[in-house]
């Protein structure tokens, strides 16, 4: 107890008083009292609700209270009773929301109406790694001389690789760099809907003009144009109109222009006529950087261990990676602290795939099948290399994904010692970090096990 702290001091006094008087007395007389201040001259000022209390304290409890405070310290000379103002008697409001920041982050979903761009996507939040370096350089070149260097710029890559982020960042940057010029971002699906609407309303001419006055047109996910001949034709004309006037056009797609099926050849050629860049799968360093950047933007610092774990165990898509980071951020805001590796592992597992009980035999089956070996050999005491590696992989997966104890894994896999299992798991874990092929293998096995 800190005897300089009125609140703690009073709480201590109350515990002592409670022992000496009846509960009814205690509840009646002490419930609404508190120490107002501790005077420098050793006088304790006790606040009471009314004259009734003051008189009764002086008459009945003064000696008792004095005895208690003297036992605490001889510094206390006397106790005086004050009748406090009514407002002060109210119980102090609990400060529940001290961390703040629990409000729904609706600001993030703000979209600029005039150009459709989401201001959240900027180059500041864009992580550049070897996988997207080329695309990033092309974007910078486009921004340096829009409409001239690479027109159109065609960016493709699998879903969740950051295509939308990159092209929107170009738009946002373009807006900042050339304040007078007009930018418009749309998805090809929106383009098709717009076109059909305008045809139905009989305003197709206005539709043509609508898109032609932009200095930078960004169209996302052009692969959805396939089989929509009229829209394709309209885009073809729009493309020509913009291209001829040196207006920059940027496309994105999940595959290269030539690989988009059912799209008019003349459009295909035009899409590929500028610069075509692909964004490949992010390497693990880039993924770590992404996780770190994403978490930091929400003011959450994660330990290296956690970052590494998330980056290595999530598959391809950056979107899923972001989802996981969001999950952790939410966890942090609710609990007030960043989760440790064990908690992350737990939530990541539930995040990536539904938790299900899987028999050891099933895992062994699948892995043996994957490596093309006889599953019986896993249980045998053989040290042939083609068996050892799969066996270690099995142990690693059983441990990491299904949290089976080391001794259990050992006994299930032909009565091996738990130290063997620990060694195997450590070994695989070490090797995953350096050996990309192994990491990919395990990733593939995991998908088989779902």
């Amino acid at each position, binding site marked *: 107890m800190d005897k300089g702290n009125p609140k703690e001091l009073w709480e201590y006094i109350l515990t002592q008083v409670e022992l000496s008087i009846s509960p009814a007395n205690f509840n*009646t007389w002490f419930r609404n009292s508190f120490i107002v201040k501790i005077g420098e001259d050793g006088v304790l000022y006790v606040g009471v609700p009314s*004259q*009734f209390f003051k008189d*009764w304290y002086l008459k009945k409890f003064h000696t008792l209270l004095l005895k208690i405070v003297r036992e605490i310290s001889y510094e206390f000379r006397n106790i005086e009773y004050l009748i406090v*103002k*009514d*407002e002060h008697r109210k119980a102090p409001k609990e400060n529940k929301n001290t961390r703040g920041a629990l409000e729904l982050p609706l600001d993030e979903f703000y979209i600029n109406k005039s150009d459709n761009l989401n201001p959240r996507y900027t180059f500041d939040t864009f992580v550049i790694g070897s996988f997207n370096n080329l695309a990033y350089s092309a974007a910078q070149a486009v921004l340096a001389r829009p409409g001239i260097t690479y027109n159109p710029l065609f960016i493709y890559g699998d879903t969740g690789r950051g295509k939308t982020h990159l092209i929107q960042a170009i738009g946002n940057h373009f807006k900042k760099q050339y304040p007078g010029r007009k930018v418009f971002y749309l998805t090809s699906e929106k383009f098709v809907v717009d076109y059909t609407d305008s045809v139905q309303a009989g305003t197709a001419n206005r539709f043509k003009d609508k898109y032609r006055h932009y200095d930078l047109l960004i169209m996302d996910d052009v692969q959805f144009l396939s089989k929509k001949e009229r829209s394709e034709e309209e885009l073809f004309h729009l493309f020509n109109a913009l291209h001829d006037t040196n207006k920059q056009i940027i496309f994105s797609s999940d595959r290269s222009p030539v690989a988009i099926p059912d799209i008019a050849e003349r459009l295909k050629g035009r899409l590929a006529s500028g610069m075509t860049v692909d964004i490949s799968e992010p390497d693990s360093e880039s993924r770590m950087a992404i996780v770190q950047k994403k978490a930091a933007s929400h003011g959450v610092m994660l330990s290296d261990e956690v970052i590494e774990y998330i980056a290595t165990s999530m598959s391809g898509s950056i979107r899923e990676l972001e989802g996981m980071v969001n999950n952790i951020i939410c966890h942090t805001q609710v609990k007030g602290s960043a989760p440790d590796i064990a908690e992350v592992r737990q939530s990541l597992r539930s995040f990536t795939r539904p938790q299900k009980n899987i028999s050891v035999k099933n895992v062994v089956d699948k892995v043996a099948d994957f490596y093309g070996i006889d599953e019986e050999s896993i249980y045998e005491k053989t040290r042939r290399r083609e068996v050892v590696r799969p066996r270690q992989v099995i142990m690693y997966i059983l441990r990491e994904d299904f949290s089976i104890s080391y001794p259990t894994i050992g006994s299930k896999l032909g009565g091996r010692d738990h130290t063997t299992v620990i060694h195997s798991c450590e070994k695989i874990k070490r090797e995953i970090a350096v050996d990309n092929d192994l990491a990919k293998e395990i990733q593939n096995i995991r998908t088989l096990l779902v």
Partner: protein
Amino acid sequence: MHISVNKKTFSEAVHIVSRFAERRTTTLPALSSVLIIAGDDGIKMRATNLETGIDLKLEGKHSSDGVVAIPATLLQQIASSLNQEGEITLEHSGDIVSLNSGTGKSSIKTVSYDDFPSIPFPENPKNRIVLPGVLLKNLFTSIASCASVSTVRPELSSIYLSIEGGVLTAVATDSFRLAEKKVPLSNKGTQGKFLIPAKNALDIAQALPDDDIIMSFDEHQCAFVSTNGMLVSRLTNAVYPDYRQIIPKESIVEAVVLRKDLENALKRTTIFSDTFQKIRVSFDVKKNTLSFFARNADIGESTETLPARITGSSLELSFNHRYLSAVLALTNAESLSLTAAGIGRPLIIRGVGDTSLLYLVSPMNQ
């Protein structure tokens, strides 16, 4: 202790005193009891709930001194069952009180009176005024209903009393309407102001005698002393808002109506008021009428038009009807004057010829 009291005196005293005992049973048993004291000052009854307290003298004979505390509800039940003839005697031995009412005899277990608190008296006797008890009684009962029932703002759930220049002013408001009543005093020397919780004021008003009493007060406590006892109350320790600022100084229309007309019109229009208890008041200068209109989507609508003397320009305002009818309890004047200062500004109601009352109602949104 051995006392003998007239049954009528006894039951009246019990009814007055037991009101001041604590009604919740969870607290100290002594607080929900009535203390009966026989001593040099005669026979007394005491009760307190730590907000208010009473010390009442009883006419009666006592042959030996003593103190007992009896649960108030029990005493109340006994008192109301007594027939009004003859004497009742209380005799106390050990922790049992024998109560003899002539025809019957009961033994009551007493409560330990050690825990019974002392009833505090204001420390500074300088702040005191003498006034008829009946006057204060009427003041408190009429005005207390205008105070706020919520305890969120302790000052608004209190009655503000100020004594200045021989006038006692009582004010109560719940921030939707405000009532101010003035009472002249015989002695003009005293000055002061205090806030008494409206709930306590009502309790005290019930127990005040009609004849002259001495009202004294200090910062935290006030007391009402009469020949047959003393009443005390805790005071609200807060600052009262400067209510004079909200009273409109100018007016654009004034209507004078008969109290009887207003009462009837309100009574009928109220039936048609909606869930917001809203009624519209129209001042019509051309026709010299004041009309009340209410519409309830479920029931229908109604208009009451009453003759009035209107001066100024026509105006329509909406009010909560409860706040309008409340004024009728505050004054006895035969005709009332309603003064409006414009849309969105409060309406002032006064009794014609009655300068003691000022009633302010804030309008509802149109």
